[in-house]
C-alpha cells in the first residue's frame, strides 16, 4: 500500500497533475466573444463558432427552422459555390462539422495551422453571406421533410423515441422535435427563416473559440479583419433558465405488425445542465447504461444470460434533459422478466448505496472521458464555449474534475431518490402482434 502511495506521489510530482490550459477571452466592439486557447506544439488549429441560439429561440410558428441552417451552410455563400467549403477543408486534410441543438449550435473546422486565414474567411462567409435564396431554403425544407418522413415510416423505434421525448418534455420548448413538426416543415415561411438568421448570426450571440497552434497577436488581427464588421439588428438571445418538467407518470402500450423484436422504452426526466444534480445524474447514466461499465448489461447479459439488447439515448440540452433506455428482445417472455428486474433495479438505486469500488471505477471512467474530450481541439473548444455560455467564466473545467472527485454514494442515493421515481418515468412498451 505504502509503495502504491509513494508511486502516486512520484507520478503526480512528475506530471504536474492537471496542467490547465492557457486560455483568455475578449470581446469585439460588436459584442462577439472570442476565446483563445493557444497550444504551441500543435500542428493544427480549431476554429469553432458557437451560437448561443438554437431551436429553442425559434418563433413558435417556425420552431425547427434553425435546424435547416445545418444543411444550408453547405449550399454556398456570396463567394463560395455549393459544397466548396467542405471540399476545401477536406482537400487540405482537415475535418469539419456542424450541429444545431435546442440551446446552442456549433460549427467547427480543424485544419492545418497554415490554413487558419482561409478557415476564418470560410466562417465569416457563412455568417455574413449565407445563400438563403428561396430555392435553397425550399430545397432544404423538402429534403428534411422527405428524410424525416422516410425514417418515421420505416422505423418504429424512431416513432417511439419521438413520442417518448414529447411526453417527457411536455409543455416545454423541447417537446417539439429539433427539425420541427413534420407536417409544418414545408409550410415554414422562407422570409421568416431569413429574418431568423439575423438573430442567429447576431455577434452578441456568438462565441468564437480558437484553439491549437497560432500566434496570439496575429490571430487577434485576423479575427478583427473577418468579424468586426459582422453586424445584426437582431436581439441578443435570452438567458437559458431550467425548464420545469411536469412530474407525471405515463405508461403506454403499442402493438405493431411484424416487428423483429419487442422493446420497452424507459424515459427518465433528467436535470438541466444548470442544475448541480446534473453531474450525479450523469454518473447514474454511466452506471446503468454506458457499455463499458453498464450494470444493466452485466445483470441481464452476463449474469442472467438473457437474450436482450440494451441501448440508450440521452439529450445534451442546457435547460432540461432526458435519458431514454431501450431494452429489446425477440422473445416477449424475456422482456416481461426483464421488466420486473428493471423495476427492482430502479428501486434499489434509491434504497441502497452503490459499492465503493463501483463508485471509484465509474468516477475514473468519467474523468478519463472528460480529459479525452479536452485532449482534442474541438472537444476542448466545445467545453470552453459551453461553460462560458452557461456561467460566463472559463475556469469551470477544473470545477468538473474537483466536483467529480468529491462525489460519493450518499449523493448518488439522494439523486436516485429524486429522479428514479415512478412520477419521473415515461414508459412505452412496443410489442409485435
Amino acid at each position: 500500500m505504502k509503495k502504491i502511495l509513494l508511486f502516486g506521489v512520484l507520478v503526480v510530482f512528475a506530471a504536474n497533475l492537471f496542467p490547465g490550459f492557457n486560455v483568455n477571452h475578449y470581446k469585439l466592439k460588436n459584442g462577439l466573444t472570442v476565446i483563445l486557447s493557444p497550444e504551441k506544439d500543435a500542428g493544427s488549429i480549431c476554429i469553432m463558432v458557437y451560437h448561443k441560439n438554437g431551436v429553442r429561440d425559434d418563433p413558435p410558428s417556425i420552431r425547427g427552422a434553425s435546424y435547416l441552417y445545418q444543411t444550408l451552410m453547405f449550399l454556398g455563400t456570396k463567394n463560395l459555390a455549393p459544397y466548396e467549403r467542405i471540399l476545401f477543408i477536406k482537400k487540405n486534410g482537415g475535418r469539419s462539422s456542424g450541429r444545431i441543438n435546442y440551446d446552442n449550435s456549433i460549427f467547427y473546422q480543424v485544419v492545418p495551422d497554415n490554413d487558419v486565414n482561409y478557415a476564418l474567411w470560410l466562417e465569416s462567409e457563412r455568417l455574413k453571406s449565407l445563400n438563403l435564396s428561396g430555392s435553397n431554403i425550399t430545397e432544404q425544407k423538402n429534403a428534411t421533410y422527405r428524410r424525416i418522413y422516410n425514417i418515421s415510416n420505416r422505423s418504429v423505434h424512431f416513432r417511439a423515441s419521438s413520442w417518448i421525448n414529447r411526453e417527457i418534455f411536455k409543455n416545454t420548448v423541447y417537446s417539439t422535435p429539433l427539425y420541427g413538426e413534420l407536417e409544418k416543415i414545408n409550410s415554414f415561411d422562407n422570409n421568416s427563416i431569413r429574418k431568423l438568421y439575423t438573430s442567429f448570426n447576431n455577434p452578441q450571440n456568438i462565441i468564437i473559440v480558437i484553439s491549437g497552434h497560432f500566434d496570439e497577436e496575429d490571430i487577434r488581427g485576423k479575427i478583427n479583419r473577418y468579424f468586426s464588421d459582422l453586424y445584426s439588428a437582431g436581439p441578443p438571445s435570452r438567458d437559458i433558465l431550467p425548464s420545469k418538467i411536469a412530474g407525471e407518470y405515463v405508461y403506454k402500450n403499442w402493438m405493431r405488425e411484424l416487428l423483429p423484436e419487442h422493446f420497452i422504452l424507459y424515459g427518465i426526466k433528467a436535470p438541466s445542465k444548470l442544475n448541480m444534480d446534473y453531474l450525479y445524474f450523469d454518473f447514474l447514466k454511466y452506471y446503468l447504461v454506458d457499455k463499458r461499465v453498464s450494470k444493466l448489461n452485466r445483470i441481464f447479459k452476463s449474469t442472467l444470460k438473457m437474450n436482450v439488447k440494451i441501448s440508450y439515448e440521452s439529450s445534451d440540452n442546457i435547460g432540461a434533459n432526458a435519458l431514454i433506455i431501450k431494452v429489446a428482445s425477440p422473445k416477449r417472455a424475456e422482456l416481461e422478466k426483464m421488466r420486473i428486474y428493471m423495476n427492482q433495479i430502479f428501486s434499489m438505486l434509491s434504497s441502497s448505496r452503490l459499492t465503493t469500488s463501483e463508485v471509484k471505477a465509474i468516477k475514473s471512467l468519467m474523468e478519463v472521458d472528460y480529459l479525452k474530450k479536452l485532449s482534442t481541439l474541438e472537444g476542448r473548444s466545445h467545453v470552453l464555449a459551453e461553460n462560458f455560455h452557461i456561467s460566463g467564466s472559463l475556469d469551470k473545467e477544473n470545477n468538473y474534475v474537483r466536483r467529480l472527485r468529491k462525489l460519493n454514494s450518499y449523493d448518488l442515493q439522494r439523486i436516485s431518490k429524486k429522479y428514479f421515481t415512478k412520477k419521473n418515468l415515461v414508459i412505452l412498451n412496443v410489442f409485435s402482434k
Partner: protein
Amino acid sequence: MNFKRTSIIIFFILLSSILLPKEQYLDLTTSKGLNLKIVKDPDILFTHAEMVIYYTDMKNPVIPYLTFLNIFNNKINDPRSGMLNILFKLGNDIEYEYNLDHIILKINFLNEKIPLFIEFLKEFFSFKNFSLKKFNYSVKNFKHLYREINDWEIITAAQVAYEKILGNRHSGKFFITPESFKNLNLSHIRSFHKKNYSLSRANVVIRGNFNPYVIFGSVEKAFKNFKDKKNGIKKIVYNTYSNDRKVFLINRNGNITPSIYWFETIPTGNNINHHQARIINNIIFGYPIGRITRIASNSGIRNFNISTTVNNHRNISILSNKIRVSYINLEKFILIADNIINQFGAGRVGRKEYLNAYNYFYLSRKVKLDDYRYKTKQDILSSINSEKPGPPVINLNNIVKNVNFSTFNRLLSNPPGYYKFTRNKKRGVIVIVGNARTVLKNLKVLKPQIIKTY
C-alpha cells in the same frame, strides 16, 4: 532514513522532469523480454496505453478468436476474473482491435492508476483462468459473440481477401468456416495462449505526462519474479503474397447498399515507399478528388463514396478502399476503376495532380498528429518493425525530405516489389458485399466467386 531516501528520489525525479525535453521516448526491453515504449507527452492529460500481439500460429483462424473471448468476454467471465476486475477498477475504457493475425488492446486511464495498469499487465501475461465450462460456452455461442466484437461485413471481406493475398502464410487460414470447429478442444486454446500471449511477443506503448524512467522501473520490478519462456518475436516475412485479380461475392440479406472492398498490398508503414504508395492511392481512389471519383461522376454514376483504411502488418500493409455504390452501377464502377488503374502504369502523373494528392496526404497527417491515438499508432508501427529506439523513423520531416515529385515519378517507372502497375493485367482483390441475387442480376462481365460465410 526512509524519509531521506524518499526525498532524494523525489528530488531526482523532479529534476529530471524539469531538465528532460518535452516529448521524451524511453524505448527498452525489460529483463524478462517485454518490449516497452514509454512516451512522456505533456499534451495528454491521462494515460493511453496500447499493446499489440502478433500471432505466430494461425493454423485454425477460430482459435485466436476463442482465446480472446475466453480471456476478455464479460458473458464468459461472470463473475469477473481477477484481470477483468482490475480493468474495471481502471475504468474499463478498453478497446480491442482485432486484425486477423494480431490484436491491439487500447486502454485509457488516469495517471494515478498506473500501478493498477501494471497489475493488469501481470494478470494478463499470467492468465490461467481457462475452463471447460467457459470454453464450451464460447464455442456454443461463437456466432453471436463473434458478431459482437466485429463489424461482420468488414471483417468477413478482409478474411476472404487475406486468405487470397497472404494465403501461403499461416497455412493460409484466415477465413472461418464450419470446418474450423471440428476437433476443437480446450487444449488448443491453452496452447495458443501459451505460445502467443507471452511477454517477449508483446509490444507495449504507454503515452502520458509522467516520468518514463519511473514507469519503466515499476514494470521491471513488477515482473521480477516472472518466468518468461523467452518465446521471442519471430520476424514475419510476407514474401509469398498474391495480388492477382480475383473477385469475390459475399451475400448479405436485407435492403442494403452494396459495398466494394478493393484490397491492395503496399510496403509497410515504416518504409518511405509506403507513403508514396498512399499518394498513388490518393490519385487513383482519393475521394472527392481522385481520378476514379472524377471519371465515375462524369460517367453519370451518382451517390457513391470511397473511404480508405490501412492495416499495418510486419513487412507489409494492406490497403482497403471501400466503395458504396448502387447495384445498378456496381459493375460500371469496377470497370472504370480497372481502366484507370491499368492506364496509370503507362503514363506519368502531372505536377498539379501530384501536388493535390501530396497536399492531402501531408496535411491530413499534420492534423492527425495532434491526436494521441494516431501518434500511438505510429509508435506501435515503429515498434513492431523493430526500428531503432525512439520516435518513429518516418515522420513528417522525413516525408517532406524524401517524398517529392521526382522521387514519386521515379518510383512509378520502377515501382517497389508489390506495387507494380502492369498494363493489361488486372490487380487487386475485390470483395463485393451485398444481396447476392441482386448483385448477380446486375453483373454482365464480372464473374465473382460466391463465398459461403460462417
